[in-house]
């Protein structure tokens, strides 16, 4: 899919990673391993900037997804956000993480809002989905802030470096999103 570039204001920018961003992106992983380890299966497998580069290249090759995008705050990489379209083109799922230094400022919520607009208005999605481990309170708070509805708990729905964990699934429909924005 075409790369994106959005200026969200207040010094926050989102743009699709290119392979040239691999070093900066990997450095952010290195600085946040303790935060990522409980949730992200790819954390232990991300050992060099080449691993990050491979992820970016793979993402860029996708015809449907825009998985690898960076969030920059005042020119510094703060986190990652991306979107995967489900088979059937009805729904897309959003995923994200942010460096500890940038947490608690609503940056992820703003990034998700922009992605939801994009998914509903430009990709024609009918529904957006967000999955978070049951015990990941901060991630779940994002879904709640976005006005999403909790729809179920997928038992052992995600594998993390610490083992399988239950996954809460949140959903929001296009008319619900339009009604609240």
């Amino acid at each position, binding site marked *: 899919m075409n790369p994106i570039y959005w200026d969200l204001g207040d010094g926050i920018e989102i743009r699709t990673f290119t392979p040239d961003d691999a070093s900066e992106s990997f450095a952010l992983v290195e600085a946040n391993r303790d935060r990522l380890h409980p949730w992200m299966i790819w954390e232990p497998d991300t050992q060099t900037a080449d691993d990050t580069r491979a992820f970016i290249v793979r993402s860029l090759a996708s015809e449907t997804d825009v998985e690898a995008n960076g969030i920059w705050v005042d020119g510094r990489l703060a986190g990652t956000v991306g979107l995967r379209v489900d088979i059937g083109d009805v729904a897309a799922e959003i995923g994200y993480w942010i460096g500890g230094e940038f947490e608690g400022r609503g940056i992820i919520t703003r990034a998700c809002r922009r992605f939801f607009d994009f998914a509903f208005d430009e990709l024609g999605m009918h*529904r957006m989905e967000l999955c978070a481990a049951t015990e990941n309170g901060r991630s779940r708070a994002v879904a709640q802030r976005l006005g999403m509805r909790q729809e179920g*708990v997928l*038992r052992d729905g995600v*594998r993390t470096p610490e083992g*399988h964990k239950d996954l809460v*699934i949140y959903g929001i429909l296009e008319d619900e999103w339009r009604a609240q924005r």
Partner: protein
Amino acid sequence: MAGAAVSPLPVDLGRGVVLRHYEIEDLDALWAVIEEERERLAVWMPFLRDAKTIDDERAWLRSVTTEPRGLGGGSLWRGDDLIGGVGLFPDAFGIVAEIGYWVRRSEEGRGHVSRACRALIDIAFDELGLHRVVIRAGVENVRSRAVPERLGFTYEGVAREEGRGSGGFYDLAVFGLLDREWRT
């Protein structure tokens, strides 16, 4: 990954029904069933929107018969008669697989789909080493929901309006089964 090289089919499901991979030669049989049951199946099955001509169906059949083949193209046969389809679709990480299915009206209510699912679940856990199997069925599709309920799946929630059929969007009930539950 996802055990692409594994090919434990065909499986004899009993009662004269065999679960085997589709072959490209099955195109005419498959197209005949689709034409005959299109209206009934399209209520729930999104793929029928993309199967407008026999060429569409040939393209799909190619995709599931190309090596290395997975288990996405399973078919149910009574002799030379195609009576249904089942598929197992593992995720990219080798953790979860989803099963989907349909059966001809004339063969409904005989447990063929449940037996086919059992065979695929055995393969998913024992041969592919997956941890979890998911079945999603329209909340109002009582016959379809009965399959995971019968097989001991746990109802985990409703993905609102994630299904799309000829009548529009519909809610999908999500059912999950873990490897340790299947073994007991």
